């Protein structure tokens, strides 16, 4: 997951780039980069399940942002039975963080009236970092693997 980790580190760097008066450009790029860090963490994890190594990059490009949001919302609102509560809590935290960062990324990239503060951006990046830790702790669990699949494939009618 080196690329995703590098993106998260870059987000932190951008958020602190100007010590006294942060530029909006740096803060916006920091938010957007934090989202893409989590996006790549999840899509790379999903693609890693594909046996043909040479096809994984193409598979990772098949993920759609809105589809991933829908899947994450379903996780955040689903009742899990017979699952370890600690695993469920971490998975829901990852899903919620994905939704939060995606919304922020949209505002950071497209809403020119929106102004960001450093504390706000660092708070969101901190949330992303926790999601990284949560994901790394649960990624081999069945419900985490089911989540990965749901990020890519639409529900059947």
């Amino acid at each position: 997951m080196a690329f995703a980790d590098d993106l998260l580190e870059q987000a932190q760097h951008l958020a602190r780039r100007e010590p006294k008066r942060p530029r909006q450009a740096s803060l916006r790029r920091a938010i957007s980069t934090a989202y893409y860090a989590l996006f790549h963490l999840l899509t790379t994890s999903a693609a890693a399940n594909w046996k043909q190594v040479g096809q994984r990059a193409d598979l990772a490009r098949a993920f759609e942002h809105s589809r991933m949001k829908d899947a994450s919302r379903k996780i955040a609102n689903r009742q899990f039975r017979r699952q370890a509560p600690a695993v469920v809590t971490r998975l829901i935290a990852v899903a919620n963080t994905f939704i939060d960062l995606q919304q922020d990324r949209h505002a950071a990239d497209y809403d020119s009236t929106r102004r960001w503060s450093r504390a706000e951006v660092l708070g969101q990046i901190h949330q992303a970092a926790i999601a990284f830790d949560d994901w790394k702790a649960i990624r081999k669990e069945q419900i985490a693997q089911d989540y990965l699949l749901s990020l890519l494939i639409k529900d059947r009618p």
Partner: protein
Amino acid sequence: MPNALWSKVEVIRVLLLVRNGFVNEQQVDKAITKFVPQLGRDVVRVRYEISTDWVGDPAIFFRVVLTDQAAREDRLGKVTTRIRAALRDKLKPFERWGLYPFIHFRSKSEQDSMKEESWS
């Protein structure tokens, strides 16, 4: 809009929103005003706005102004995690009103400098 892909939970949520005339904003305001003191001394004030997210789903955007001490980098992570959890899991805006919560933070000195009305 509605299609066969919607889960039962989503269908029920939308039906509730329709029945209630989207949401009862007075009820929401009353609940938030009552809840905010529970967030503790780290919080200067909380503002909110009911709107939609980037794909048009109902949402509530919280703007939390923190004390400068709470927004110090060595405390910020813990403070925002705690407040985020409280607004999401104790206030339960999604379960009560069908509004997905988005929560943002700013320090008092940042807001004093930026002077944005929506955070005042």
